[in-house]
């Protein structure tokens, strides 16, 4: 029996949106922490650390997120570990975001001129003090716009979590569509909700970018 596309259906979509937001936050915070580690491994003067971090980044940037989700969700099952979609999605999105955030931040740290490292070293600052007082503050300023930009990528990519049965906005859209069979209406609504989440961030990212070219 076909249902009509009513306000209730819209509420159902909005309710699912909170899981999209939850996954995004997990991916951003978890990925941020792991990404910080990746960035540090890449900038310290240690070959094995750099090599390990580079391999990690290649692995997660060089394979589709979809495949990563399948491998973790079904792959773990093959080894006798039954993971819930929640766990699989959290782990995969964290590791995947980490690869990108780590690379973005590495680029920002390395964009700080070598002269800044030298001037601070020449004043007797330790490596940790150089990072804390001289490098991080400058790198963070240039990192802000691309980081906010990547947050938008995370939001849009959470829709892939639906493939392993995780119910978020995109999956909720499929469910509503099979009940109402109003694909155009349903998916337009879904797209508008994504847009409402992403647009403010895109605008913010652009504003930060503009600010960067101004003064302090």
């Amino acid at each position, binding site marked *: 029996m076909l249902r009509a596309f009513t306000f209730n259906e819209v509420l159902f979509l909005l309710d699912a949106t909170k899981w999209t937001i939850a996954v995004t936050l997990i991916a951003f915070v978890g990925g941020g922490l792991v990404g910080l580690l990746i960035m540090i491994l890449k900038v310290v003067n240690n070959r094995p650390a750099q090599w390990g971090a580079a391999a990690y980044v290649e692995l997660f940037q060089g394979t589709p997120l979809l495949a990563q989700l399948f491998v973790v969700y079904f792959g773990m099952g093959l080894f006798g570990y039954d993971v819930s979609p929640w766990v699989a999605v959290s782990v995969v999105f964290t590791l995947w975001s980490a690869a990108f955030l780590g690379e973005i931040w590495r680029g920002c740290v390395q964009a700080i001129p070598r002269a800044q490292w030298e*001037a601070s070293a*020449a*004043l*007797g600052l330790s490596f940790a003090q150089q990072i804390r007082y*001289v490098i991080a503050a400058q790198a963070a300023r240039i990192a802000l716009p691309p980081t906010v930009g990547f947050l938008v990528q995370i939001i849009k990519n959470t829709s892939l979590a639906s493939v392993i049965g995780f119910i978020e906005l995109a999956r909720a859209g499929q469910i509503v569509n099979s009940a109402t069979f109003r694909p155009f209406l349903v998916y337009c609504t879904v797209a508008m909700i994504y847009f409402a989440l992403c647009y403010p961030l895109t605008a913010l990212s652009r504003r930060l970018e503009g600010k960067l070219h101004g003064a302090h």
Partner: protein
Amino acid sequence: MALIRIENAWKSFGKVPVLQGVSLEVGEGEIVAILGRSGSGKSTLLRCINGLEKIDTGNIWVDGTLVNAAGADVRKLREKVGIVFQSYNLFPHLSVERNITLAPTVVKRMTREEARAIASDVLRRVGLEDKIGAYPDQLSGGQQQRVAIARSLAMSPKAILFDEITSALDPELTGEVLRTLAELARQGWTMVLVTHEIGFARNVAHRAVFMHDGKAWEEGPPKQVLVKPETKELRNFIASVLD
């Protein structure tokens, strides 16, 4: 004993030999000008003195401590020897005051008040006490360079190395920086200056050293060495600079 003593220092970058047996001493309170063609290793020598680069063989002592010993404490060394670069290298995200107080507070663990008092003192010495709240990009090149000098002074090092600190400046701005240097000279700081300003070297330095072929080729009192050079290499160099 000399404050800085360099003994037969060798250094190459890959296959390019840069320092090929440099020996040089700088006494306490002495002002030494280093001259030489581009690529003769002047900057490299200064960078080796405060541990930004490592020599391959030879020895460098600063204040009685062997700089190139295994496990030498470069951070302790850098408290004794400051360096000012051609491109100033101020921290753009920090105010003039914080540029100056950063190292005293985090390296020497002074309180912010003590460090602030030092900042006003060193800024007065370079004639910029009214710029304490400014940011580097609000200052002219000459002013930025004077803040960089003040930042180095604030650590009260035993010696300061200056690497062509007027070369990046417009001609009309070099005067103010040279006057600041002359004032420091009068106050008795130990200074090693790499410079192309032959006139300045002649008037301010106690000794001039001409670097050539990775060595301290010719040295002596500037009024003698720069006026009546003994080697034809230095004669040629002076002729090319005065052109």
